[in-house]
C-alpha cells in the first residue's frame, strides 16, 4: 500500500509515468511537489509533457504508473471530494458557445451547489459582469479566457490548475491575467499550478518552478533557488588580444570561447575572475572590461534543457 504524502504539499505526484499507445514515454518518473499557498510555474517547451501531467492529475487520462495525491489524499480513491476543491482550465477554454457567460456559470453552479450570488461575484472579478445575454461564442479570446477563469473560481477552490492560461491573449490581457492570479493567490490563499512556455510570465508570477523537458522533471524548487543553484553567470571579457587571452585562459583550465569579439567564460567564481584579470595584465594584455551576463530565467531554462 502506498503511503507517501508530505502534508505541506498541496499536490504531489510520485513516479508518475505515462506512455501513449505506440509512442515513446511521454512522462518519466515525475515527482511534482506543489507547496500550499504557492504559485507553481510548470515550465517546459511544447510537447514536454506539461499538459499530459495536468490531465493525469485531474483524471482526464487514465493513470498507468505512479501516485497522485492532492491535499494529502490519493486522487483515485477520493476523486469526487478532491475535485470539489480544485478549479481547472486545461488548454483552450471549455465554454458552451450557445450560452451566455451567466448561463455557463449556472451550469457549474448547479453541480457545485454554490450560492447564486457567487455567479455575479466571479463575473465582476474577471470584468464580465456587463456582458448580458451575449453568447460566449461571440466573445473575444480574452473574454473567453476570463470567463474560463471565472468558471474555475466559482466554487472557491483551494487549488487552481491552469494550463497555458495566457495563450492567445494580447499583452494587456496577459498583464491583467497575471495581476488577477497574484491577487487571488495573495488574498484568498489559493494555490496555483500554472503551466506555460512563456518564461518571462512565469518569472514575474511564480514563487516555485518545475521545469520539464522530454517527459523528465529537470528542476523543482523556488525560483530563487533555481537562479542560485544553476551554474554561475557567464562572464564576458573584452581585451586587446583575444587570441592570446584565450590561450592563457585555456591553460588555466577555464572553459572559454571567443564570441562576437569578446571572450565568454563559463563557471568561474569571483575569486577566479580576479586571478584571471591579474594574469592577463601581467601577460601584457589590456583588459577593457569584465562583466557578468544577466542570468534570467530564460538563460537558466535553456541551460537546463540543453545540458
Amino acid at each position, binding site marked *: 500500500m502506498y503511503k507517501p504524502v508530505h502534508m505541506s504539499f498541496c499536490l504531489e505526484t510520485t513516479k508518475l509515468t505515462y506512455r501513449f499507445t505506440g509512442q515513446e514515454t511521454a512522462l518519466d518518473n515525475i515527482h511534482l511537489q506543489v507547496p500550499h499557498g504557492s504559485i507553481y510555474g510548470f515550465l517546459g517547451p511544447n510537447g514536454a509533457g506539461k499538459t499530459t501531467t495536468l*490531465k493525469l492529475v*485531474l*483524471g*482526464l*487520462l*487514465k493513470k498507468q504508473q505512479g501516485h497522485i495525491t492532492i491535499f494529502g489524499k490519493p486522487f483515485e480513491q477520493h*476523486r*469526487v*471530494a*478532491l*475535485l*470539489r476543491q*480544485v478549479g*481547472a482550465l*486545461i*488548454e*483552450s*477554454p*471549455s*465554454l*458552451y*458557445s*450557445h*450560452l451566455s457567460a451567466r*448561463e455557463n456559470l*449556472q*451550469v*457549474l453552479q*448547479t*453541480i*457545485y*451547489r454554490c450560492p447564486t450570488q457567487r455567479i455575479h461575484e466571479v463575473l465582476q472579478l474577471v470584468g464580465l459582469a456587463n456582458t448580458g445575454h451575449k*453568447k460566449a461564442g461571440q466573445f473575444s479570446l480574452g473574454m473567453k479566457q476570463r470567463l474560463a477563469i471565472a*468558471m474555475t473560481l466559482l466554487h472557491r477552490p483551494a487549488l487552481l490548475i491552469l494550463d497555458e492560461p495566457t495563450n492567445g491573449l494580447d499583452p494587456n490581457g496577459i498583464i491583467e491575467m497575471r495581476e488577477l492570479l497574484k491577487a487571488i493567490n495573495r488574498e484568498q490563499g489559493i494555490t496555483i499550478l500554472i503551466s506555460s512556455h512563456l518564461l518571462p510570465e512565469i518569472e514575474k508570477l511564480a514563487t516555485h518552478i518545475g521545469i520539464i523537458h522530454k517527459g523528465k522533471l529537470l528542476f523543482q524548487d523556488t525560483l530563487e533557488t533555481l537562479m542560485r543553484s544553476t551554474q554561475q553567470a557567464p562572464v564576458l571579457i573584452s581585451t586587446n588580444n583575444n587570441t592570446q587571452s584565450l590561450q592563457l585562459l585555456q591553460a588555466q583550465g577555464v572553459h572559454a570561447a571567443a564570441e562576437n569579439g569578446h571572450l565568454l567564460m563559463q563557471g568561474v567564481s569571483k575569486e577566479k575572475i580576479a586571478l584571471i584579470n591579474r594574469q592577463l595584465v601581467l601577460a601584457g594584455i589590456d583588459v577593457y572590461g569584465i562583466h557578468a551576463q544577466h542570468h534570467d530565467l530564460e538563460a537558466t531554462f535553456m541551460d537546463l534543457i540543453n545540458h
Partner: protein
Amino acid sequence: MQLPFFYSFKSEWLKTRHSLSSWLTICGAFFIPLIVLFQRFYYAADSAAVNASSRVWQQLYTDNWEYMAVLLLPMGVILVSSLITQLEVKNNAWKLVHSTPQKLHIIFSAKLAVILVMLLQFFVLFNIGICLTALIPAVFNRHIPFPRQAFPMMAYLRGSGQFFIACLPIVALQYLLSLQFRNFLVPVGAGLGLLTASIIAVKWKYGYIIPYIYGTLKFIGKQPAAALYTLPLSYFCGFTIASWLLYYYKKQKD
C-alpha cells in the same frame, strides 16, 4: 446518489437551452401537425366530415403518425441523441465535465436521461400538435365542427408509449456511438445507414431483429409480439450496458 443525479441532470438540461437539439425537438414535434393542419384548411369539406365522424381522433392519429413513424421520428432521435454529446465535443468541454466533482455513472446517466426526457417532450408536443390539427380548423372555419368524439386519452398514451419504446434502441446505440466518436458524422452516418437498412428490411421475415425497425413495425402493425416490448427493451438495456462499459474504460476523457 439521487441528489447528485438530480443536480447533474439539471446542469445537463441547462446546456440544452438555445441548443440545436432543443430546437429540433420542438420544431420536429410540430412539423407534421403543421403540414396536416394546412392540408385540413385546404380540404375544408373533408375536414368537416372527419371532425363530424366518430373516428376523428383515430383518423388524425394515423394521418400524423404515417409520416412521423417511419422516417422523421427515427431521424430526429438519431440527430438529437448525437447532438447532446456533440455539445461537449464542439465546445471542447468534455474535460470540463470530467474535472467537475461528479461520479462517472452520474455523468453518463444524466446525459442519457436528458435525451430520454427530450424524447418524452417530443411526444407530448407532438400529441398536442395532433389535438390542435382537430381544434384549430374548427376555431377558424365555421363550416368545420369541433370533434364529436371524445378525446381517447388512453389510446393515445398507449400508442405514444409503444412508439417511445420503439425508439429506445436507437437512443441507446446512438448514445454509445456519439460517446465513442468525436466526429459527428460517424454516429449520424451509422444511424442513417441502419435506418435505411431497416426500411429496406421491413418485408423481410427476420427484419424485426434490426434495432431501428420497431417504429415502422409498430406503425404498420405487423410485428411479432416480441417486437413490441421485449426486443426493443432488450436492445436498449444491452446497448446501454455496452455504452457504459466503453465509456467507463475509455483511457482519455477529454
